[in-house]
């Protein structure tokens, strides 16, 4: 059988209360929604960093000594988004490089439509019909911008979800068995964002509900159910990011039982774009009892419909880390902070912010394992672990030349040795927190911290490492990434991290 083997969700820690947005615009539009909150990416997060975290959560396989990385055995990676940081540089390739899996993978980007997440999932599952197809990870991630005071500003959220899939023999414990799927294409423009534009242009919801949701869905759902050999009224969970107002009508049109629609997370996460159907599926699989039937629907210039049967791994909080990711949120009730971190408010960054962040690409290439994958060295002679890997061992009692082997540190346990909160250094989110961390495997790293508000860091606190934007090079339009330390107790995304 073809099956989903594991799932991972990443939601940025920052949650913006919708009441905060509404309060900011009360003079302009007093009718904005006030209930609930939405996720948003910090200044050093984008669709790519969110995707890396979702893939890590989906593929975590932490060994007893706290070292993983080498056990992410999948052979292909598909990355779906409408907000890739790079138009011409493989975004999936960079995700693979960050995971230390460069060189082994097919890595492909899927974009162009909010349906790209489910389309990538469908394509990967269909490819698994070939017994030679390797295990594949599909990740979808989006960080869409919205104009201040627009309905989308309150509706959108930022997030990512990933699934690992492969062939499994019958009887194997899987997350969900893939039963069948279908897709149709229709150039229905409910919204669009042209190349070079920052914001979506969105049409009237009533038209979309009646003409698209009502009339297009059956065209894919029917064939998908037929391919799966499942009757519509047997579906237990319909995973679709459809507006609540459309759900009752949809149930009637598709022949679904009432009450099978999952919560679309509008008041807790927001609409995460291409990631949303996958986020909803990961959430649904935490609740679905084994053998429950799920219908997944993606919408965007057509319809994807996929049918799954929940497996033995479903129905518990370990099925995905969605609940943990949701619980790890933290309210950031500053509207100007949200605006600034979305690039929608030009803050005074001071002259230190003028620093030229030009990247020497030849250096970045030579040092890519060190920088992009956070791989250190371990001395063959004395077993000393060090970061970064260098030609001569740093152990003062060894100092041997050319004895170091690669030692992945991204998943290594570590603690704060010392730190500071620097209000003088340039950062879009003052203070710049950085310090020295001691790896449990040995060795020290002088490293930036993130997701740590003033007063939240302490000596001895455990940290985990996350892949983040280090600098933006505005002069050349380049994004530079590196790993940062996050105090764990404050930002724990649950299993495997």
């Amino acid at each position, binding site marked *: 059988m073809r099956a989903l083997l594991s799932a991972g969700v990443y939601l940025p820690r920052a949650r913006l209360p919708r009441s905060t947005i509404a309060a900011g615009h009360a003079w302009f539009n007093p009718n904005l929604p006030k209930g609930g909150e939405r996720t948003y990416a910090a200044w050093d997060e984008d669709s790519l960093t969110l995707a890396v975290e979702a893939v890590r959560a989906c593929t975590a396989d932490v060994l007893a000594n706290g070292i993983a990385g080498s056990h992410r055995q999948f052979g292909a990676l598909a990355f779906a988004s409408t907000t890739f940081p790079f138009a011409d540089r493989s975004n999936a390739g960079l995700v693979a490089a960050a995971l230390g899996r460069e060189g082994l993978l097919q890595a492909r980007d899927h974009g162009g439509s909010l349906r790209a997440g489910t389309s990538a999932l469908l394509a990967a599952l269909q490819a698994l019909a070939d017994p030679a197809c390797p295990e594949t990870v599909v990740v979808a991630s989006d960080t869409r911008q919205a104009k201040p005071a627009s309905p989308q500003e309150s509706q959108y959220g930022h997030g990512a979800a990933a699934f690992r899939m492969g062939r499994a023999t019958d009887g194997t414990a899987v997350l969900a068995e893939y039963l069948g799927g279908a897709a149709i294409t229709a150039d229905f423009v409910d919204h669009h964002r042209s190349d070079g534009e920052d914001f979506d242009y969105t049409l009237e919801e009533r038209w979309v509900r009646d003409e698209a949701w009502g009339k297009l869905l059956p065209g894919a759902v029917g064939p998908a159910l037929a391919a799966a050999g499942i009757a519509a009224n047997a579906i237990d969970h319909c995973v679709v990011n459809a507006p609540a107002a459309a759900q009752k009508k949809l149930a009637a049109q598709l022949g679904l039982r009432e009450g099978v629609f999952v919560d679309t997370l509008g008041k807790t996460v927001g609409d995460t774009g291409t990631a949303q159907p996958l986020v909803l599926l990961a959430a649904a699989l935490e609740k679905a009892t084994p053998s429950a039937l799920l219908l997944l629907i993606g919408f965007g210039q057509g319809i994807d419909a996929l049918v799954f049967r929940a497996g033995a791994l479903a129905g518990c909080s370990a099925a995905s880390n969605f609940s943990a990711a949701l619980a790890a949120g933290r309210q950031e009730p500053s509207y100007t902070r949200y605006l600034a971190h979305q690039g929608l408010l030009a803050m005074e960054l001071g002259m*230190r912010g003028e620093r030229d962040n030009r990247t*020497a690409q030849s250096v970045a290439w030579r040092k890519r394992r060190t920088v992009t994958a956070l791989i250190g060295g371990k001395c063959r002679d004395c077993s000393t672990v060090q970061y970064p890997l260098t030609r001569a061992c740093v152990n*003062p009692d060894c100092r041997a030349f050319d004895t170091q082997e690669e030692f992945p540190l991204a998943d290594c346990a570590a603690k704060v040795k*010392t730190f500071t909160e620097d209000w*003088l250094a340039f950062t879009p989110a003052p203070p710049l927190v950085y310090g020295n961390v001691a790896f449990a495997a040995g060795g020290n790293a*002088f490293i930036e911290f993130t997701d740590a508000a003033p007063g939240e860091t302490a000596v001895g606190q455990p940290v985990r490492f996350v892949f983040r934007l280090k600098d933006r090079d505005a002069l050349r339009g380049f994004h530079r990434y590196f790993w940062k330390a996050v105090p764990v107790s404050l930002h724990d995304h649950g299993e495997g991290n």
Partner: protein
Amino acid sequence: MARGIRDQVAIVGMGCSRFGERWDAGPDDLMIEAFQEASADAGIERDRIEAAWLGVFYQEQSTSKSGLPLSMALRLPNVPVTRVENLCATGTEALRGAVYAVASGAVDIALAMGVEKLKDTGFGGLPERAKGTFEDLWQPGFTPPGAFAQLGAAYAAKHGLSMQDVKRAMAHVSWKSHENAALNPKAHLRNRITIEQALGAPMIAYPLGTFDCCGVSDGAACAIVTTPEIARSLGRTEAVTVKSLQLAPSNGVELSHGSWDGAHTPTTRLAAARAYAEAGIAGAEAIDLFEVHDCFSITELVLMEDLGFSAEGRAVYDILDGRYDRSGAKPCQIDGGLKCFGHPVGASGLRMAYEMYLQLLGRAGARQHSPQGKAPALGLTHNLGGIPNRNVAAIGIFGLMDV
């Protein structure tokens, strides 16, 4: 077996510009101001200088590279000028070059000049500086206060102290430097402050507040060095000689190895042991007064232990007891230190030597230290270039010829 530098080289003239926000002066003005004082002091004209060393750190900011800025500013007679740079140990490094040249017998008279013109950036604090194409890819975008501030959290944790207690000692360190600089006409910051002011100041980089950070100053300092014989021939009855000059750079341990605790500077301990041996003294107890690299109050605090003036874990108590005050047993930063005299990076090591020179000769005026009614016999200077994670420690010991 090398015999070391002790008593082989005498300092016969020193000069130091007024430190501060010298909007009136460029690097050449500052060098001339320091040189004219040294030249008059030594009775040595520039044409007798056979070789010179120029120390400047932010050359991009102030002077441009090479030895030319000194050669051109003083219109030296085309003698060799070498530009040196070793982070905040740059001034001491320039002195080391000149002293070694005389000790080797290659020249009779040499000049060491340190200069820094920092206040042309347009913003407060030190200029931004690239760390290298690889380092910029991964190291934090730190500032000097943030990089040194890390000593604070680690020191408090190591010794089981509350940050409040450490902060109180840090405030005493800064208060003392302001008290001392009030007596120094060349110092940048001559105002007196209260402990409460220091404790209540805005945070720069936890746990450092405004008053825990040294001045960003323009300035220059220089030394003219020669052999003890020539010093005597110049009529010097009391000559200050170099007892020791030692340098210990990091080799990566503090950056990458697990053994460093983040709460002390191993290079200072290494350099101190070598310096005491070269000077032929047992340790810190033989030193009458000293100047350390108090770029930040927490740095001075941990250095009391690294140099051996305080026992391990006792710096907070010794500082609060007044041991390092002007009236204490071992005055530290009697001229105001980097904190208040100022810190024009390339000049700082030579500024410290300048103070020792004045104190040893009994010429320090209102701030003269007189243990048991006499001028001090041995003084120590210390620089810590870079940041605790990767640094250069430099130590100089100076004394009168016969000591």
